[in-house]
């Protein structure tokens, strides 16, 4: 099954296809820049790059509507860019500066945007899964028709709380799409060494949750699967599982030498299955865009990313008073609460 061939006549407009190309390229270039800034010591601590997995979030965002929510783990930069968060704010958070989404207090793994319905950015493997179901619980309670995309990896799929959540999401028919981003390695442990059974998407079956396997290197297939899952949730049928097979080119984090797989394996994936190259080929072969058009997009993206890096370097460190703020709130809760 050759992904590129099967998607040769995409059921999307050339403009949409170009948009996906642009969105995926933004994530890749942003992440490359983040890796570079990490190397320069401007980004500290843990930094988990999304390179290779771009089609997953871009495809699912194409299936989302305004007001839908998303929550994920610590490999979160791609999700934030895909849902429209400002690259400057994300990069400045990575450098721990005042201009970051969390004023520099969250870092790479802990970022949020209420405006874009992005609920983190969570550093504990699997903990975002019940949180995502809880967001869906609130939407169900408020009867607002929203759906929550709850992302987690193949590693998190072995956490007990995931199955506690499957159980409750199913009995309460919560509108949540569980997105298993299967990049095939839980940090350095290959799926077959850590995970019994080959198909994680079937793990919802005992709970009555339908699931399917999706080619995560093909943005159009991801979008199509996402639309189906969202429709299921919005129809009040409860949760849906998408196991999206993808691949991360870089190490688990910046300090991972990635000795658990061969260079050839990574190289083969990059050369044969790259999700961005895939769409680029579609655009050129379908004559939806010329080389010059794509060069112009490349330049636009490069400018955005360079500007974000500049912003992230120039934004000052947070004022020392920030140490003591945002520990307690005096305000009534935000969000979609029922008005009194």
């Amino acid at each position: 099954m050759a992904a590129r061939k099967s998607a040769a006549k995409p059921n999307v407009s050339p403009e949409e296809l170009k948009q996906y190309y642009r969105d995926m390229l933004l994530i890749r270039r942003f992440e490359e820049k983040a890796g570079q800034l990490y190397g320069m010591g401007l980004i500290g601590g843990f930094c988990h790059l999304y390179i290779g997995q771009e089609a997953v979030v871009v495809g699912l965002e194409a299936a989302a509507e305004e007001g839908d929510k998303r929550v994920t783990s610590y490999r979160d930069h791609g999700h934030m860019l895909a849902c429209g968060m400002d690259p400057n704010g994300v990069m400045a958070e990575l450098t721990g500066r005042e201009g970051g989404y969390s004023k520099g207090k969250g870092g790479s793994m802990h970022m949020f945007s209420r405006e874009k319905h992005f609920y983190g950015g969570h550093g504990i493997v699997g903990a975002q899964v019940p949180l995502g179901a809880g967001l869906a619980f609130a939407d169900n309670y408020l009867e607002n028709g929203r759906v929550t995309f709850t992302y987690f990896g193949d590693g998190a799929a072995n956490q007990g709380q995931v199955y506690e959540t499957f159980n409750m999401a199913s009995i309460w028919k919560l509108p949540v799409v569980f997105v298993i981003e299967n990049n095939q390695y839980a940090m350095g442990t290959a799926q077959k060494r850590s995970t019994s059974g080959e198909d994680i998407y079937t793990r919802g079956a005992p709970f009555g949750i339908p699931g399917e396997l999706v080619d995560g290197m093909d943005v159009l297939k991801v979008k199509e699967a996402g639309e189906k899952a969202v429709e299921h949730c919005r129809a009040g049928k409860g949760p849906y599982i998408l196991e999206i097979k993808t691949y991360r080119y870089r190490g688990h984090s910046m300090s991972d030498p990635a000795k658990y797989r061969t260079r050839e394996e990574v190289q083969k994936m990059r050369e044969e299955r790259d999700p961005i190259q895939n769409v680029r080929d579609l655009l050129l072969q379908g004559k939806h865009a010329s080389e010059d058009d794509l060069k112009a997009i490349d330049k636009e993206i490069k400018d955005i990313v360079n500007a974000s890096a500049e912003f992230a370097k120039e934004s000052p460190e947070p004022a020392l008073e920030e140490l003591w703020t945002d520990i307690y709130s005096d305000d009534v809760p935000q969000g979609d609460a029922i008005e009194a």
Partner: protein
Amino acid sequence: MATQILMPALSPTMEEGTLAKWLVKEGDTVTSGDILAEIETDKATMEFEAVDEGIVGKILVEEGSEGVKVNTPIAVLVEEGESVDDAEASDAAAPAASDESAPAEAKGDVAPGPQEPASSVPAAAASPDWPEGTEMKTQTVREALRDAMAEEMRSDANVFVMGEEVAEYQGAYKVTQGLLDEFGGKRVIDTPITEHGFAGIGVGAAFGGLKPIVEFMTFNFAMQAIDQIINSAAKTLYMSGGQMGAPMVFRGPNGAAARVGAQHSQDYAAWYAMIPGLKVAMPYSAADAKGLLKSAIRDPNPVIFLENEILYGRSFEVPVMDDFTVPFGKAKIWREGSDVTLVSFGIGMQYALEAADKLAEEGIEAEVIDLRTLRPIDYGTVIESVKKTNRCVTIEEGFPVGSIGNHIGAYIMQNAFDYLDAPVINCAGKDVPMPYAANLEKHALVTTAEVLEAVKQVTYR
């Protein structure tokens, strides 16, 4: 334009490394993602990828070089047609990133001396909780808690309660009795026995705009959920730079019940009181249970509400008022006295009050302070009292190491040392898992006799 390739930091702690091997040579064309070199850090050998595309104009650091400092230029990338000389000319302008990115040193003016927790509230214990002459009725703690939830659920449609057996069973300890009938299954929700999962769903629902009350059948079981309570509920407001938090209550019985053994008998007061971002209440009386729970439900922050199974059935006078609340951070003085200050909270108060009665018979007037909330703590009321009595004994059922009493004692030492005529004594549970045997269990908890003995010591009698 030429680009310098700098020695990368490849781990959070790396300052220098060995350039083990170049995988490109001068004149090679590289694109982003190509592996340029292998670099040995203190932990591992890492592959180093190109970010920019171009031609390797010059390799500045030979392979095999050890101790190459992070951010040292190791090669120069040039564009087609550009010479290395052009590149070197532009090097001079390259910024050094290391200085400005050095983490800010903790300055002396940030954390002066002993710190009060961020939300400490000044002393106000002297003011009454309800107006004089208010009609009173006798109510159990259990009924008071139920009324608090029902009143708040009536006034705010976003409040709901979830937990094991809270609905159809009417509450494992009958605290939620009648709520299902009044509010229906949408707002009174039985969960499966999966604390980790439903606590997380509760936090997510709070992120989503609701105000959950999550009941744990006992706080012993909340240990399964403590990651969600602390990492998700307590820290999100801070980690999001104030954008979102978890307005919710985690409540249930805490501490030893009777004869249920080690796994079901533990006081978590000190555990949760340690965590910035949480508020913690531990009421003793029915009036405080009601007034504090109503405040907790309205609070925009996550609140740990520690009840006690033995106290559920105790009756107290509760004011009959339309909307009776007790603020957090306000201690209650149950009894005024001039000879010694007894500081306690929750079920510890029964030992404190019993001891005070007996001491009075011997002519020792104890001042008895019920902290009521452990985060924030009403330090002011404690300090004012100690300045008057010059002696203090703390009383709690929890383990002795790292206890609330330890903290109060340290706070008094730092803030009222010159007023002390004796060391503060902490009366606490024993440093042992809770035994099952009746006689051993009695000894494992704090006893009134121990409180009396401690008071004798600090008053030198």
